[in-house]
């Protein structure tokens, strides 16, 4: 079994220290080690105060499941099920797990029979507990929202993960009950939970990992098999840093990410399946049928995504995607500041009473927003506990007014997405609305209005569509086939952000354009900017800005052995490759003059190579090297026509 742990610093401690090259498996001891006794288990203590992670040497032979597993030839499908990837959607607010059960997708429930579980980790008395009571320990306390808001729990990790302390989203998170400190130097923000009246620091990754361990344990107990492979949904706007952090959290939790799927593409897969089934029942055959174009609008608590997809014959092709960090949290914040204009100054002091009253206000505001989905006005009555009582009516119109900016951004995203996919409202057959915020009347009318539709697509549960699609992808990508044909579908993913390199003068030249179907491979030829330049710096960025500083720096490396030549004549080939698992590799090297042969072996670099402080690195590179190692583009007509 090859090492699949990303080879980067700070990878899960369990993975680094494990002497076996196999995948680390991490489980919280108290919950499941008794359920699955494993051989060769070795424990290592990782932040003893939080959680004990044990790393098991996983034999090739998986766990012995109760029934004697047959290993004869025609047991292939059975053994395939051992590796069947489950679908997980970790939402900013709620989370769910689903799995292909051989005939359809099934959502798992926790012991309180919930399919949607609150995403948070409670730090209390030297143990950590998430919302998910792991099977064996079903009597674990279910925390009430009030306690989650007491400062002892960390939530919204999906909003915080992979962001530096200069990020506006991190700044906006400072009004949460737990501590988020920013020093604006481009590093990880300081995040801490209140434990025994002391603020204890943690990181969003760590919190996500703890939460995933809980989910994994819960699924293992219910499915009676070890879980290793997962398909995780992510927001469209997640850059590769954020994706790496999510993967790292999974690694810490002993999970292997088979695919990271932007949420609307998971929904698109479910849509493809539904269309396929509909057509089969209509025509009784597997005709490729007519093409249907759908616009998917997904808005949850933390993120808003829009995608367009063209579906026919079970194949759903993503035409374009747009996403941004906008969601229920922003709506809630707007309402909070509307109710209490001096919210910030009121809660700058974080003593216990202040935190408690802030939590109560949050709950009241959230409840009001939910009720406004069906009522034109709601009464807010809340005793904030510190002598202040809030009694007032919130009208629909007021709500829409304070959230005008939110709706404007939604509108902009949809328009951008339609323009990117070269579609007009008339070309759209179905409008699919998913995510919690899609229940807000103003948002529904806005999306439907822009698509010139009377009503939305029916037949999908707004809160379960993404996780269902993820479980379908888990089955498809695990190689499961279904005799009835209900897995004969595919989503052709696209890259949501352009990828390219820096050229002389600080410009950004995309090599893989956004909305390119993946897997993909593209290359371009660049040339030197100095006479006799023998080395060049390949600085890789992700984003849409014309200048590199508007984009995310992924990493950099040096191409050497460029043949001596006057500036503008040497040829440096830069190739970018995204595989089916969305891994980005950059290949670069100098060509021999006038040929298409390499002058010396190419470099292959898996991106991103950087961790934090990327802004600094870019500045440092310029400061140290000036433009001595710069590259520049060559005219289009000189680009080789062949596409490799």
């Amino acid at each position, binding site marked *: 079994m090859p090492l699949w742990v990303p080879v980067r610093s700070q990878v899960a401690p369990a993975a680094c220290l494990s002497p076996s090259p196999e995948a680390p498996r991490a489980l919280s001891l108290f919950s499941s080690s008794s359920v699955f006794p494993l051989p060769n288990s070795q424990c290592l203590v990782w932040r003893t105060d939080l959680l004990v992670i044990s790393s098991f040497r996983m034999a090739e032979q998986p766990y012995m499941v109760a029934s004697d597993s047959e290993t004869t030839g025609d047991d292939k499908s059975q053994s395939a099920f051992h590796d069947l990837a489950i679908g997980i959607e970790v939402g900013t607010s709620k989370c769910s797990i689903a799995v292909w059960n051989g005939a359809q997708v099934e959502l798992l429930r926790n012991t309180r029979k919930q399919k949607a579980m609150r995403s948070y980790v409670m730090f209390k008395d030297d143990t950590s507990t998430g919302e998910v009571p792991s099977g064996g320990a079903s009597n674990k306390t279910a925390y009430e929202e009030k306690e989650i808001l007491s400062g002892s729990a960390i939530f919204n990790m999906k909003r915080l993960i992979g962001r530096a302390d200069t990020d506006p989203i991190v700044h906006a998170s400072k009004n949460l009950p737990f501590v988020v400190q920013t020093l604006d130097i481009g590093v990880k923000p300081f995040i801490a939970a209140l434990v025994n009246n002391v603020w204890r620091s943690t990181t969003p990754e760590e919190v996500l990992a703890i939460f995933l361990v809980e989910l994994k344990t819960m699924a293992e107990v219910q499915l009676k098999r070890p879980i290793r492979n997962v398909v995780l949904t992510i927001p469209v706007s997640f850059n590769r840093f954020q994706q790496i952090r999510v993967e790292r959290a999974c690694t810490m939790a002993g999970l292997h990410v088979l695919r990271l799927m932007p949420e609307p593409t998971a929904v698109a897969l479910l849509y493809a399946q539904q269309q396929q089934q509909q057509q089969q029942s209509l025509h009784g055959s597997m005709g490729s049928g007519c093409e249907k174009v759908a616009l998917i609008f997904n808005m949850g608590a933390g993120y808003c995504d829009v995608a367009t997809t063209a579906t026919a014959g079970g194949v759903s092709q993503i035409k374009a995607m747009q996403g941004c960090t906008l969601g229920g949290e922003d709506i809630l914040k707007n309402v909070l500041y509307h109710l209490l204009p001096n919210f910030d100054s009121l809660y700058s002091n974080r003593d216990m009473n202040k935190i408690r009253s802030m939590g109560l206000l949050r709950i009241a505001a959230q409840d009001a927003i939910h009720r406004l989905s069906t009522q034109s006005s709601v009464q807010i009555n809340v005793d904030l506990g510190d002598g202040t009582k809030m009694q007032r009516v919130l009208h629909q119109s007021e709500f829409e007014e304070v959230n005008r900016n939110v709706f404007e951004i939604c509108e902009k995203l949809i328009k951008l997405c339609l323009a990117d996919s070269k579609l007009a409202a008339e070309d759209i057959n179905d409008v699919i609305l998913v995510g919690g915020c899609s229940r807000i009347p103003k948002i529904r009318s806005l999306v439907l209005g822009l698509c010139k539709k009377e009503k939305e697509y029916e037949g999908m549960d707004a809160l379960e569509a993404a996780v269902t699609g993820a479980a379908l992808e888990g089955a*498809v990508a695990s190689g499961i086939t279904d005799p009835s044909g209900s897995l004969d579908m595919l989503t052709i993913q696209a890259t949501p952000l352009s990828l390219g390199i820096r050229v002389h003068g600080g410009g950004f030249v995309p090599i893989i354009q956004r909305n390119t179907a993946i897997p993909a491979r593209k290359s371009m030829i660049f040339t030197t900017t100095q006479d006799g330049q023998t080395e060049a710096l390949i600085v890789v960025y992700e984003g849409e800005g014309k200048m590199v500083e508007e984009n995310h720096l992924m990493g950099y490396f040096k191409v050497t052995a460029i043949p001596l030549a006057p500036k503008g004549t040497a040829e440096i080939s830069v190739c970018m490759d995204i595989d089916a698992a969305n891994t980005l590799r950059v290949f670069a090297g100098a060509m021999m003059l006038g040929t298409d042969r390499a002058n010396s072996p190419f470099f292959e670099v898996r991106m991103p190579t950087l961790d934090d402080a990327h802004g600094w690195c870019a500045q440092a590179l310029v400061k140290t090297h000036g433009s001595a190692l710069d590259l520049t583009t060559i005219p289009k007509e000189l680009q080789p026509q062949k*596409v490799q």
Partner: protein
Amino acid sequence: MECNKDEALRAKEIAEKKFLERDLNGAKKFALKAQNLFPALEGICQMIATLDVYLASEEIAVGEKDWYAILSLSVSANEDTVKKQYRKLALQLHPDKNRSVGAEGAFKLISEAWSVLSDKSRRMLYDQKRSAKGFSQKTSQPNKNNNVPSNANGFYNFVNTAASKAQTVKKSTYVTPALCI
């Protein structure tokens, strides 16, 4: 029957080896043999589909690949046919659906072909170039080809993706660094 299956498996293995050795014709020959011996052999259809795309990609038309041949389409194919054929091939070749070596590379090729032929202006430009050079109007023959590598990068591409394909389920961090060229 079973002995046929064993034979077929062996032929398939040889085909894989030939493919990794860049001998596409040899690979195709053994893949077909495997299919003849045991038509129900797992993954054999996908393997042949993959090889056909590579073989077609060897064809160079006007300094570009023969995108029509890659999608096994005639030059006169209309928009709808192009779309259908691309979807059909995508279902056969996408790494989610096809576990044979090189599937990923083959998928990239058909995606590229699709991006040229589905874009009206790009297709027109490409067609113009072809007719200017008097390139044949009839269906390109994917199987007619020479065995000379068209460009070294192309081979680099498929060897590399083949290696990554082999480990795709485990998503290895590192692919055997197939030496560039």
